């Protein structure tokens, strides 16, 4: 299972853009990722242990939030996960 990391997360993962993280479910793969690189936890998870609202996790092209089993969705060897912080903003006009 490969997890692709966006630019802002790479400093916490030895500058890697992709990490091998085994797991039978998305939650297990994410746990493997943060076990390998504990400094990622603070960016991805809030203090209550939930994924931060601005952090999107994609299983292939599917937003994990919209999968029936969400973080407990099963993974296959050919699947990839992508972590993608949101982009938004606007003027104070």
């Amino acid at each position, binding site marked *: 299972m490969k997890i692709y990391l*966006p630019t*802002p997360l790479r400093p916490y993962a030895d500058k890697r853009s992709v990490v091998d993280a085994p797991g039978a479910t998305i939650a297990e793969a994410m746990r493997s990722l943060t076990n390998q690189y504990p400094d990622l936890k603070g960016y991805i998870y809030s203090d209550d242990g939930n994924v931060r609202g601005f952090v*999107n996790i994609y299983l292939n092209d599917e937003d994990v939030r919209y999968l029936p089993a969400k973080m407990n969705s099963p993974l296959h060897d050919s699947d990839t996960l992508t972590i*993608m912080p949101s982009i938004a903003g*606007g*003027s104070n006009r």
Partner: protein
Amino acid sequence: MLKIPREQFDGLRAHGEAEYPQECCGVLIGKLSDGSRVVKEFIRCRNSQTLMADRRYSIPAEELIAAQRRAREQDMDIVGFYHSHPDHPPQWSSHDLEEAHWFACSYVITGIEKGRAGDTKSYVLCGNDEETKRFDNEEIEVLTEVGA
């Protein structure tokens, strides 16, 4: 510093004019080189804000995924983003900072005055986390050489 070819620079400004009076938005892909973000391509994105799109923008996640994939296929990275401020200066806002999460990336803003592009400014998201993040001013170098 943000280094961007003239064609890309003019293109993202034109995007702001085309979307006026709504905010435009997009992704900058390129490479990091000697501490500078060097843009090779800009990707126009859809502003998914349906309310107050004249003062808010949001890039759909699926378009971010596509941009990330495109960058990866060309051995490049997402190095920044751009958007416009219709009838407002290109100064980052409190909302821009609150919604910024891509550390060490450029956030380029073009002020669009009555439909015409005005100044374009760039800011780098600095800091270590959500509590300490800030925008620092970033110089823009527009590259005019062929093959830049």
